[in-house]
Structures are given as structure tokens and as C-alpha cells.
């Protein structure tokens, strides 16, 4: 029970994985596409450059599989940024400690105002987001926020700093439904250069975070990498490997994957590895074809045109009208955001768009008591 992902991860090397991806042949991709049950090696083939010419067929297959498993439904959620205080230096992030910007952590009454604004827009699923500032914004703060928000929302998830198992147990009991934690990159050496300081510089503690969440019995774990830091193909293979391991071990938990693509933010560098729209579509289809049960979430980082067309192709959840600054909905709409969002349309407009595509926008798909 106490074993972790680390030994599984260490059995692979970054370079050999990259080599396998880039030497995949079109015939191998075809074989993987024609199977009925696929494994992690099929996923590797489906995200290879050799699969790119088969993208149309992959999109059709992804659509079919998603429809059967999830129906014609898209869940809607919104992030609620509680704090931008952060003691980490992440060279790509707007909230990085060395960025000079006014720091703010919402008080209980401010949380209430922001939450009511989200509720008024129709949201029932909320994602609480913070930086990493363990003394002021730790588990006691999260528990208080969750306690307060439980009567307003049907589903509460968090995207905060990695915590200990006991913290996750307490949050699970407080009825937090899911935890999102992104490895940023699975390239150990590169990880060090992007995260030179702060608790986040501990690669292994972060890598084993989903294990601690799983041990705590959380309903959902969300994984992802920051697309643009390293080669997205290799990083995504390791993400899938991680999900594959977790799914077998913590079998009562659901898994979701997100695609934070590097976007402009104050003080950051340009992406090292550019991921194009056709790359992102290929990745989404590869995930779906490999894993029919995986929840796939797409944020407002993405362009409206891309978001419009991706609806039937594999995603199951979308955010809408997001603000990525604490107080961004009501309290302090002018403050600096973590990253610039691309799709600024209102939640109502996104819901209408989803309906126009023949899909049902789903605001509530959980019961806080579970």
C-alpha cells in the first residue's frame, strides 16, 4: 500500500522514451488504432509524429468513444483563485515569488462575495486555486474555505500546493471531491532549473503527491504537465504512465487530465517547446482512444475557435468566464492575473455554444454529500 509511483517512473528513461516515440512507424500507429483494448504503448504510438497524418481518423474515433462513455454532455466549472501568495520561484509563472506584484489572500467575507458571483452565473462546480504559501494558506485555511462553500456548490475541487496524506484525508472528509496537481514536467533535470527555490523544488515529493491523494480516498485526481516547458510528447507519455499506475492502484478514484499550455504572463519566458493546435488535438484524441474513462478538461487558456471545435472531440469538462487573479470576479477585477485567458466569453455564452453543438451543458453532476 505504501509503495509509490517513483520506482515505476525510474524504470523509464526520458531519452529512450523519446527515441521510441520518434521512431514509431505509421504501421505501428495503424495497429494501435485498430485494437479494441489499448495499453500505454499504444498511447505512445498515438502521440508520435507518425500518427499526425491520421489525425482525422483519430478525431472520429475519439468522438465515438467519448460519446459512448460520457454521452453528449459537457460539464462546466470555474476556478476561484483564493490567493496569489507564493514562496516558490517558478520561472514561467506570473505568481512566482520574485515577481513584484501586490499579493492578496481572500478573507472569508471576500470568498463569500466571489463565490456568490460564481453561483449567480450558474456554476455548481468550483475549483479553488492558490499559490504555495504554507504558513498563511495551508490546510486550516482550505478547510475553512471548503466549510464555507459547501452550502453554495455541489462539487468542490482544489488546485493548491502538494500536501501530506493527513491533509488530504481531512479535505476528503470535508467533502472536497478532487485534487488537481500538475507535475509541470517529468524531466527531472529540467524540473530543477524551472523550480530553483521553494518547497516545489523537491521533484520527488511532487511526483508522489497523487499517491498521497489516492491513499486519502479522494474521489478524483487531476494530472497534467505544463505544455511548453519540455517536449510535450515525452512529458505526456509520463503523465499517462502515471495515470495508468494510479488507476490500477487507487481503483475507486476517477482521473482527469488537463492541458495547461504556456500562455503569456508577467515576467515569464517564451515556451521552450511550442505546441501547436494540431498537436493539442492529437494529444486529446490519443488520451481518449487510449483511456475511454478519463475525464478531459479544457480551460479558457485556449482560443475560442479551438474551444468551439474541440467540444465533440474528446473533452468532458470546460471552464468558462474564468478569472485567474484572487478577487477577479468582484473584489479586485483589475489585479494582475496568473496568466492571460484567451476565451473571455461569459459562462452563459459558453453554455449556449455547447447547446448549439448538440451537447448538453451540465452545471451540476455531483452531490456534495458523497
Amino acid at each position: 500500500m505504501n509503495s509509490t509511483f517513483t520506482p515505476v517512473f525510474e524504470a523509464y528513461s526520458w531519452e529512450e522514451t523519446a527515441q521510441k516515440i520518434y521512431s514509431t512507424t505509421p504501421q505501428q500507429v495503424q495497429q494501435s488504432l485498430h485494437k479494441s483494448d489499448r495499453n500505454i504503448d499504444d498511447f505512445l504510438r498515438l502521440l508520435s509524429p507518425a500518427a499526425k497524418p491520421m489525425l482525422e481518423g483519430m478525431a472520429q474515433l475519439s468522438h465515438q468513444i467519448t460519446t459512448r462513455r460520457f454521452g453528449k454532455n459537457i460539464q462546466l466549472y470555474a476556478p476561484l483563485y483564493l490567493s496569489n501568495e507564493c514562496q516558490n520561484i517558478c520561472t514561467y509563472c506570473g505568481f512566482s515569488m520574485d515577481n513584484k506584484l501586490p499579493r492578496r489572500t481572500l478573507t472569508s467575507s471576500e470568498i463569500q462575495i466571489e463565490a456568490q458571483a460564481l453561483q449567480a452565473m450558474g456554476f455548481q462546480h468550483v475549483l479553488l486555486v492558490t499559490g504555495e504559501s504554507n504558513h498563511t494558506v495551508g490546510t486550516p485555511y482550505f478547510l475553512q474555505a471548503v466549510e464555507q462553500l459547501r452550502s453554495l456548490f455541489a462539487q468542490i475541487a482544489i488546485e493548491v500546493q502538494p500536501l501530506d496524506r493527513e491533509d488530504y484525508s481531512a479535505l476528503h472528509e470535508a467533502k472536497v471531491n478532487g485534487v488537481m496537481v500538475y507535475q509541470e514536467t517529468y524531466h527531472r533535470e529540467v524540473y530543477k532549473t524551472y523550480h530553483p527555490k521553494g518547497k516545489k523544488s523537491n521533484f520527488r515529493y511532487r511526483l508522489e503527491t497523487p499517491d498521497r491523494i489516492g491513499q486519502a480516498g479522494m474521489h478524483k485526481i487531476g494530472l497534467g504537465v505544463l505544455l511548453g516547458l519540455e517536449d510535450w510528447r515525452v512529458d505526456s507519455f509520463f503523465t499517462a504512465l502515471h495515470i495508468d499506475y494510479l488507476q490500477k492502484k487507487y481503483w475507486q478514484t476517477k482521473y482527469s487530465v488537463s492541458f495547461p499550455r504556456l500562455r503569456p504572463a508577467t515576467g515569464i519566458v517564451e515556451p521552450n517547446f511550442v505546441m501547436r493546435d494540431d498537436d493539442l488535438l492529437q494529444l486529446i484524441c490519443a488520451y481518449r482512444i487510449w483511456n475511454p474513462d478519463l475525464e478531459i478538461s479544457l480551460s479558457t487558456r485556449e482560443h475560442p475557435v479551438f474551444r468551439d471545435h474541440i467540444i465533440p472531440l474528446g473533452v468532458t469538462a470546460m471552464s468558462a468566464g474564468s478569472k485567474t487573479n484572487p478577487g477577479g470576479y468582484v473584489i479586485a477585477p483589475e489585479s494582475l492575473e496568473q496568466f492571460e485567458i484567451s476565451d473571455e466569453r461569459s459562462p452563459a455564452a459558453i453554455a449556449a455554444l455547447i447547446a448549439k453543438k448538440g451537447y448538453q451543458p451540465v452545471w451540476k453532476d455531483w452531490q456534495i454529500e458523497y
Partner: protein
Amino acid sequence: MNQLTIADRTFQSRFFMGTGKFGSPQLMRDALVASGSELVTVALKRIGLHIEDDDILSYINLDQMQLLPNTSGARTAKEAVLAAQLAREAMQTNWIKLEIHPDPKYLMPDPIETLLACEELAKQGFVVLPYIHADPVLCKRLEEVGTAAVMPLGSPIGSNQGLKTLEFLSIIIEQSQVPVIVDAGIGSPSDACKAMEIGADAVLINTAVAVSNDPVAIAQAFAKAIESGRLAYETGINNSEAKAIGSSPLTEFLTQSYSS
């Protein structure tokens, strides 16, 4: 054809429907009407009574329809019992489809938690319809604790694989003293027809209708198949034979005269 009775309610239609996965609530409503169904299951987790636009209940004709709230999302007996109580309040019915599937991948029902929850809910006066694996012994145990019906699966939820559990469904039907509703996995009208032919009291269908290109047309097709299968069951179907039997080769000698 005979009417179906569950607890205190009789049904003309043996086609029960689910409400998930539809492209819009309007489509769901149209399919429901086309199906002629009189019982519809709704997940408690999808009900937001204070949100006008998302209130799928407003698309269901509650005068003609038995609402069957379900506990989808619950992983334990404790959560399911709480969900049933919330559902009773929200939907004003003591009927409950007990769904406890802790495995989010194949949504396989947990037999142990289901039995515990069924016992508790029956004691509290609920009309309990549990979603279970096609396990004949579990069905008898559920009867003993007061279940109103049993809902064994044909194959995994949403899989459209048909009646993979056919032999076990037959055993359940043969032994059951409560109605048997085949739930989950029915992908085509012929699957539904087969379930009715072997004596199921009803079938519950969702995915095969909801994600069809034409939910209204396929709902009608299912309704006809279900009616045909039931009529055939009530009429009695002659057993099939592997080969034609024209004479009596083994006993023909009895018709011949011979002397000993």
C-alpha cells in the same frame, strides 16, 4: 399482456428509461414520450432544484411518470442511504434505485454495500430497486431484506454489449419472487427483446437511446422490441432443436409387430 406491478404501482409499459447522456433535455423529453415509458430514473447528483435551466425534472411529465431517483456517485452504503434520503426530499418519492459502484471505470456494483444499504432503506420504508451484478444468490439475499425488485446487469453500463450474463439472468428469473429488471448494457432492440423473451419483467435502457443519432426513432424501436419479447414470453416459445426430427428412430420398433 399482463401488467407489471412493483410495490404499489402498476405499469403498462415494461420499458424503463434513464435520463443521462442526452444532447439536450428537449431530446430526452421527446425520446421519453416516444418510448411510452412510465418509469424514468434520474441521478440525484444531476438535480439542481434551484437552477431553472438545468432542472431536468421540468422536462418530465410527472403526472404519468414514476420517478426513480438513483444514488449514482455513492461508493458506500452510508453514502447511498444519505443520498436516498436527500432524493426522497428533493423528488418527493420513496422509490430509489440503489446504485453503489465504487469502481469508476466499469461502474461495477458493490454487492456487499448494496445489500447493507438495501436492508437499511427497506426498513426506512423505501421502495428499493438495486442495481446489481447478475448474481442469483445476491438476488435471494436482497429479497430476504425487503427489496422491491432486482436490477441485474446485462453487461457493463454504457457498453452496449448486450446480454453477456444471459445464463445467470435466466437463473435469477427462474428463482425470483420479485420483479427482475435487466439494467445496463442493452445496446440494440434485439438485446431488449431477448431479455423479455427469457422472462425479464422489464428492461432499463439509457445509453443506447441517449447517444443514438435519432433518440426518438430508436426509442420507438426499443418499445416495439420489448413488447414483442414480452408477448412471446407470455405466449410460450417452442424450444429450438439442433436438427430436424422427423421420425422416432429409437422407438420405432415398438410399432412393429414381432413375436417373442
